[in-house]
Structures are given as structure tokens and as C-alpha cells.
């Protein structure tokens, strides 16, 4: 990578020029950082003291960490999160495309859907699904299916519909934003090559929109994981419900809530890592060189600080 930039009229190349003397200066002192650290430490100490004085049975948290009921609740929380997001994303993409469509009927339908589901609290929607049994006695989809409403609309289905359909409205807006973010020249170039609307959308627009869609969708998944705790409204046995049950039956109520919080934190942290790598994948082509991942950076640092300069270029 060395280029001969106007060679100075100096001794021949085999005698390297003397290294310039590094600057010796007194660095700026960051007193603010020390003060801030001190304040934080004091506040932390006060907090620890307060909880030490309280009657908290800390041992209950590791004891119940892998309790069968808690794990069942955790599993249900993860299931409902994933399935609701699947419904949300699929329906959201469909709604976003409908909204963009030149067909006035489909775009109006999509507009009303988003208007309704975004305009009402998800908690209210969950209650509505749960209590629909008060107005319907049977479900009767003429030739296919007929059943008692209460057998059909289980807590699981209530939770799934309540969370999934609500999420679709938000995903529709996220997807629409992504589609609009792609330069119009891309559509023109694809059309000029003779590609149809559908193919242009699938092959050209959506892959580029993903870069805009993925980061907020990651946020939505993390949000969904936490929002799913609202399914307590429809009697679905999720992590929060299980923690409350165990707390009520065995005694350590607050400890079990802390335990639930710990599990939620673990799950959201894992999801954040997944989101990081997904974003990286969809950023290809957008930046010339992807920055190294934390793992790559760590590896580069461990492999020795001697060739530090080359670590940045390793891909």
C-alpha cells in the first residue's frame, strides 16, 4: 500500500528517515468523571444498605430459578412472543404492501386496520378477545369448523390474537417506512429492465428496505417479550403468572418478581445480541467495510497488540 509520494531529495531509501519525536504534553484532567463516579458509588451504597435492611430472602431466587413452574411460564412467554411476532411481521408486511397498492380498496382497508389496532390499548384488546365469549356462544365457520366458543377461544388463542394482531399494525408502519426509504431510482431501474411490480418489490425493494426495517423490528421483538406479560389479562400462564403463582404459594412474593425480572433481562439480552448480527447481515453493500464484531475485536486484541495496526483491516 506504499505509494511514492514525491520523494524528498534525501539519503537513499535503505536509510529510513528518523522517527519524529512524539509530543509530550500534560493531558487534560477530567475531574467531572471522578465526581460522577463518586456520586454513583454513594447512591449505590445507599441502595444496597436499604435492601440489606429489608427482609429479602435472596436465596429464594437461585432456588426457584429453574423451578418447573417458572420454566413452564418462561417457555410459554417465549412461545407467545415468537408466534405473535410471526403473525405481526407476516401480516404487517401484507398490510404495508396493501397500503402502498394503487388499488383504493386494499389501501383503505389497510389504513383502517392500522387506525383501529394502533388507536386502542393492547390491554383493552386482550380483554376484548377474552370476553368475546359473552356475546358469542358458538364459533361456526360454516362447512369447516363448529365448536363451543369457550373451547375454541383458549387463553393461548386470546393471547396470540391480541398480541399478534396489535403488533401487525405497528409492523405495517415500520415496513411502510422501510419501503418508502428505498430510492425511487431503484424502482425505475428495475422497471426499465422489464421487471414487473411484484418482482421489483421482491427482488429489489424489500431486500433494501430490510436494512431500515430490521433495527426497529428487533426493538419490537424485545418490546413484545415484555408486553407479553399483559397476557395475565386472559389467564395465559406466562412467566409473570408463574412467578406470581409460585410467590403466592411458597411465600417469597417480591423475590419471585425479581426472579421474573432476571429472566426477562436474560431473554432481552440474548435477543439484543441476535439483533446486532442480523443488522450487520442486512448492512452488506451499504457500507464499504463492515466494522469488526465485538468477538472479532476481542480476538484481534488477544492475538497480540504487536500487530495492532493490522487488526482494524482484518475482516
Amino acid at each position: 500500500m506504499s505509494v511514492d509520494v514525491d520523494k524528498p531529495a534525501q539519503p537513499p531509501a535503505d536509510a529510513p528517515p528518523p522517527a519524529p519525536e512524539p509530543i509530550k504534553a500534560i493531558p487534560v484532567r477530567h475531574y467531572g468523571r471522578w465526581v460522577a463516579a463518586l456520586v454513583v458509588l454513594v447512591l449505590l451504597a445507599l441502595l444496597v444498605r436499604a435492601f440489606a435492611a429489608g427482609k429479602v430472602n435472596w436465596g429464594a431466587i437461585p432456588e426457584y430459578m429453574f423451578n418447573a413452574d417458572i420454566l413452564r411460564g418462561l417457555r410459554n412467554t417465549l412461545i407467545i412472543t415468537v408466534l405473535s411476532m410471526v403473525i405481526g411481521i407476516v401480516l404487517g408486511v401484507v398490510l404495508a404492501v396493501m397500503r402502498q397498492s394503487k388499488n383504493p380498496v386494499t389501501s383503505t382497508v389497510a389504513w383502517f386496520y392500522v387506525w383501529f389496532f394502533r388507536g386502542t390499548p393492547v390491554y383493552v384488546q386482550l380483554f376484548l378477545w377474552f370476553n368475546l365469549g359473552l356475546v358469542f356462544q358458538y364459533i361456526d365457520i360454516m362447512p369447516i369448523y363448529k365448536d363451543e366458543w369457550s373451547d375454541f377461544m383458549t387463553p393461548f388463542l386470546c393471547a396470540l390474537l391480541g398480541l399478534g394482531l396489535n403488533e401487525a399494525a405497528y409492523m405495517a408502519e415500520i415496513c411502510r417506512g422501510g419501503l418508502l426509504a428505498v430510492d425511487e431510482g431503484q424502482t425505475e431501474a428495475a422497471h426499465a429492465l422489464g421487471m414487473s411490480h411484484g418482482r421489483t418489490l421482491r427482488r429489489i425493494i424489500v431486500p433494501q428496505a430490510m436494512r431500515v426495517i430490521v433495527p426497529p423490528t428487533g426493538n419490537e421483538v424485545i418490546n413484545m417479550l415484555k408486553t407479553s406479560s399483559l397476557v395475565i389479562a386472559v389467564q395465559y400462564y406466562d412467566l409473570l403468572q408463574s412467578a406470581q403463582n409460585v410467590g403466592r404459594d411458597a411465600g417469597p412474593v417480591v423475590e419471585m418478581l425479581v426472579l421474573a425480572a432476571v429472566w426477562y433481562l436474560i431473554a432481552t439480552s440474548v435477543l439484543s445480541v441476535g439483533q446486532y448480527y442480523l443488522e450487520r447481515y442486512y448492512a452488506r453493500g451499504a457500507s464499504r467495510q463492515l466494522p469488526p464484531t465485538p468477538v472479532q475485536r476481542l480476538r484481534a486484541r488477544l492475538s497480540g497488540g504487536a500487530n495492532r495496526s493490522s487488526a482494524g483491516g482484518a475482516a
Partner: protein
Amino acid sequence: MTSKSTPMVKAEGVHKSFGTAHILKGIDLEVAPREVFCLIGPSGSGKSTFLRCINHLEKINAGRLSVDGELVGYREANGKLYELRDREVAARRRDIGMVFQRFNLFPHMTALENIMEAPVQVKGESKATARERAGKLLDRVGLADKAGNYPSQLSGGQQQRVAIARALAMEPKLMLFDEPTSALDPELVGDVLDVMKDLASDGMTMIVVTHEMGFAREVGDSLVFMDDGVVVESGHPRDVLGKPQHERTKSFLSKVL
């Protein structure tokens, strides 16, 4: 209807408005097969709009516009015009390549994938065939070593040459160039013009909206000067550029030459 007698592009009284802005005010012109046809004029004169009408990226409001004897965007039967469906419009566009001022390469695909995309997706070519031909086209525009690069890793001139190769991959009978060198650094313009000259000498019919008077003079067979939505002057580039007849042409040329 032999191809000799049919003009590649024929415009009769073409009008185009965007809302209240009247952009094209009755354009009449003919482009013969194998001709290199240059469009010049001040910005806002409607030359790019006209070019975009030719492959129906813009819909004309009045007049008739045909490519190789077929109306653009319509089908005529029993003296009535029928709007074409999107699918039919797309089918007509396959034969018309277009190169944009801002390249518009697909940023999520490598140079090679950009060129393969339309033949595979639109024509249903096998990937192997398309890849082989894409490689040849890259070689032709002098970028054989850049096949695996993404557009963001290429210079503007290289991107534009890939864009030309991408359009050529559909084996068009007409190529539209919309100010292909206007977004390029001056030292990169030459490479792109060389590729275009090579195309012209191969007998490709080309319509070129350009500010490169040197290119127009050297390669062009005809030249049209447009201003304010009308054709002011047309003829052989040597004549129009050398001995302009109209005041507007003279004043425009005095500013750009």
C-alpha cells in the same frame, strides 16, 4: 413493415405535463435504427422527461409515441386506444435499455449479480448462462476484475459502466442514456464515453441526453436542441453545433462550449 422503413422511435406532437407544469409542448422527431441521436438543451428543457416517456416511465398526455412501430403504453384496435396492463408495459421495456444519471445500481448485489438479475428474473435464463454473459459484458466495459464488488466499492465511472453492462444484458434494440456522465468526476467521464463509442460503432441505436458536446460531435449522427419543451433546432451535430441557426441555440452553445 421492414425494419428499414420503420423508425426506431417516432414522436408526433408529444405533450407532457406534471400538474400545471407543461414540460413537453409538442415534440416531433424520428430516430432511425443504428442511429446515435443526441439531445441537448438547458436543464428543465424537457429532454430527460422525453427520454423517460420513451420507455413509459412517464405517461404522455397527448400525441403519439412509438418504438419500433409499436405505440408506447397503448394498443390500438378498431381506431381506439387501449391502455396496456403493467405486465405488457414491462414486456415492451425489455427491449429498451436505460442508463441513468445516478447509475441506480442495485446496492445489495455485486456488479456481476446486478448484470445477471434481469436476464435470470425476466427472461428466465439459467444462472450459468447469465453469469457467463455477465462476465463477458463486464470484460467489454473493462471491469472484469470487479465482478465481486458491491456498487459502493466502485467509483462513479465504474458504477456507470456496470450500469451500461446491466442494460446490455437484456440485449436491447434501443439504448437510452439520461445524462450518463453528469454525475461523474471529470477524469472518469472518458471511460464511460469510450464504452458508449464502442457501442455506437457496433451499430446500437442510442438516444443520448448529454452535455458532452465533444461526444455529440464525434459520435452523434443527429442532434436535437430542445428548449422550453420544444425542439428548437435539429440536424447533423456538425451543423447544429458549428453553424447554429437560432438565437436560443447560439446563446446556449456560447455558454457551454
